[in-house]
């Protein structure tokens, strides 16, 4: 493994340690080294906003802690949900007396650990509302949206929810806005190459050279089909079709677009994808309000990309455009 690591079993510890050193102006650790807290959190009288998830997706999740962004993040092992205790500690760190919203992704471990953390927080007298992201179109059919995984759409959910909280909204309003944000998101991942958990030492799955896996998940969960590798334009058109057919937006709708690399795909290729994606979206009579292209939500050194399209209304547009300060390039 051609990697910069010290000990395969301490990748998360070392990552968080180096992260906090780099961004001490924005983040800090509390007593639990698996909870990253915004330097200015908690804010008295503000609804706290937290998330959490497995590591290996950097800059997600920790990179989105900051000013007008997340108040605290629970940090799991690589590709593995944080503990209930870490979620609980994150909730406590974010609590400014007005309740806490936990905005997380739809994975078995996260669901269980958040559920337990919520119970623990209730005992502390902290009211917790939750929103579960399920933007990954290929992980279940439209009739079973609640089974879909959460992927890069979480970033838009965090942003809109956090901005709403920063503006002084109450718990129910923050929850409802975050729920609307993720309801308005559809995402798809395409994979060109696998990744390896350092402690495991061999790729978790394979993608044959000359093929592409359409609909792959953020941990290499199988997609809906494997097919011969096509041009970037054809792939981009497929991605748009899957996302927008599921979306079913009306003509003239405004959207935000997020194209994220999965870790080892060079940035220029993401821009090549965007060249066609932007054209496709506009050809469908939609209006692009903003585009984000970069490594926003990765999967270790997986080769591939995700596309997220969020439908915007005036509220979401305003919230998305709030200036924030966080370590991730957002």
């Amino acid at each position, binding site marked *: 493994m051609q990697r910069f690591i010290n000990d395969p079993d301490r990748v998360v510890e070392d990552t968080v340690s180096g992260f906090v050193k780099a961004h001490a102006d924005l983040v800090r650790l509390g007593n639990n080294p698996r909870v990253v807290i915004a330097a200015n959190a908690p804010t008295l009288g503000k609804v706290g906003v937290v998330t959490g998830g497995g590591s290996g997706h950097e800059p997600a999740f920790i990179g989105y802690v900051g000013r007008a962004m997340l108040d605290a993040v629970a940090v*799991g*092992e690589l*590709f*593995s*949900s*944080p*503990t*209930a*205790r*870490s979620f609980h500690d994150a909730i406590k760190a974010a609590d400014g007396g007005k309740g806490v919203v936990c905005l997380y992704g739809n994975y*078995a*471990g996260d669901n*269980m*650990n958040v*559920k*337990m953390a919520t119970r623990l927080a209730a005992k502390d007298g902290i009211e917790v509302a939750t929103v579960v992201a399920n933007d990954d179109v290929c992980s279940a059919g439209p009739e079973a949206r609640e089974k879909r995984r959460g992927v890069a759409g979480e970033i838009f959910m965090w942003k809109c929810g956090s901005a709403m909280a920063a503006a002084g909204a109450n718990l129910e309003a923050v929850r409802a806005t975050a729920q609307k944000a993720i309801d308005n998101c559809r995402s798809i991942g395409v994979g060109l190459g696998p990744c390896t*958990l350092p*402690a*495991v030492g061999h790729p*978790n799955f394979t993608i044959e050279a000359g093929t592409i896996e359409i609909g792959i*998940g953020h*941990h290499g*969960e*199988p997609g809906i089909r494997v097919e011969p590798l096509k041009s970037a334009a054809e792939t981009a058109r497929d991605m748009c079709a899957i996302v927008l057919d599921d979306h079913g937006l009306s003509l003239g709708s405004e959207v935000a677009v997020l194209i994220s690399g999965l870790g080892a795909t060079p940035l220029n290729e993401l821009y090549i994808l965007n060249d066609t994606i932007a054209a496709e979206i506009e050809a469908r009579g939609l209006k692009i309000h903003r585009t984000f292209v970069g490594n926003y939500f990765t999967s270790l050194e997986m080769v591939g990309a995700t596309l997220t399209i969020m439908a915007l209304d005036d509220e979401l547009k305003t919230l998305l455009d709030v200036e924030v300060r966080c370590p991730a390039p957002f």
Partner: protein
Amino acid sequence: MQHFSNAATGDIVLAMADRIIANKAYLSEIDGKIGDGDHGVNMAKGFGMAADRLRDGSYRLSEALDTLGTVLMSEIGGSMGPLYGVMFTGFAESLPKSDAVDSTAFSRMLHAGLDEVQSIGGAKVGDKTLLDTLIPAIEAFDQATGSGATFQNALVALRTAAEAGRDSTIDLVAKIGRASRLGDRSRGVLDAGATSCALILVTLAEGVTMKLTS
């Protein structure tokens, strides 16, 4: 009536931890076939940490189980942290205040743990999970005591059913968890959680058997 003493049996949890740690590579290998290959690592880490906290004293079984459950819940995360976490704290909380644990109390304990696992995980028999070990094992124990078997003999029934339940997962298609995304490809191998659950139940039955008095 056969029973054992809660007060002096915390070391059963140490035996469990030793067994899990000894099977670390084996459990990960099984998980690697249709999961992500970390089950042994996760389990050994959690059980090892709990054992470290228990090694230097003598604890009541309920205390030791509570420590184990709490460590799993607070240090392991993933899916196994909460699932086994609530199971062991469920076990611990239901053990009687009085010292003597008879087969009725033991059955109550098993059900308390099972209820917690099902309430948080939502799986059922046939989904190819640890419940394919746990549920038949508890049923066999209850059936044995119901038909008049001694505590000791009921524990034999529990062990046998746990191992049979584990083996039943070979032919199952995973319906829940990571392996479920593989569909039919998940058939033909043991489920990792069912395998660790059998190790846990067998060690528990062995430990209790040795402590039984009448």
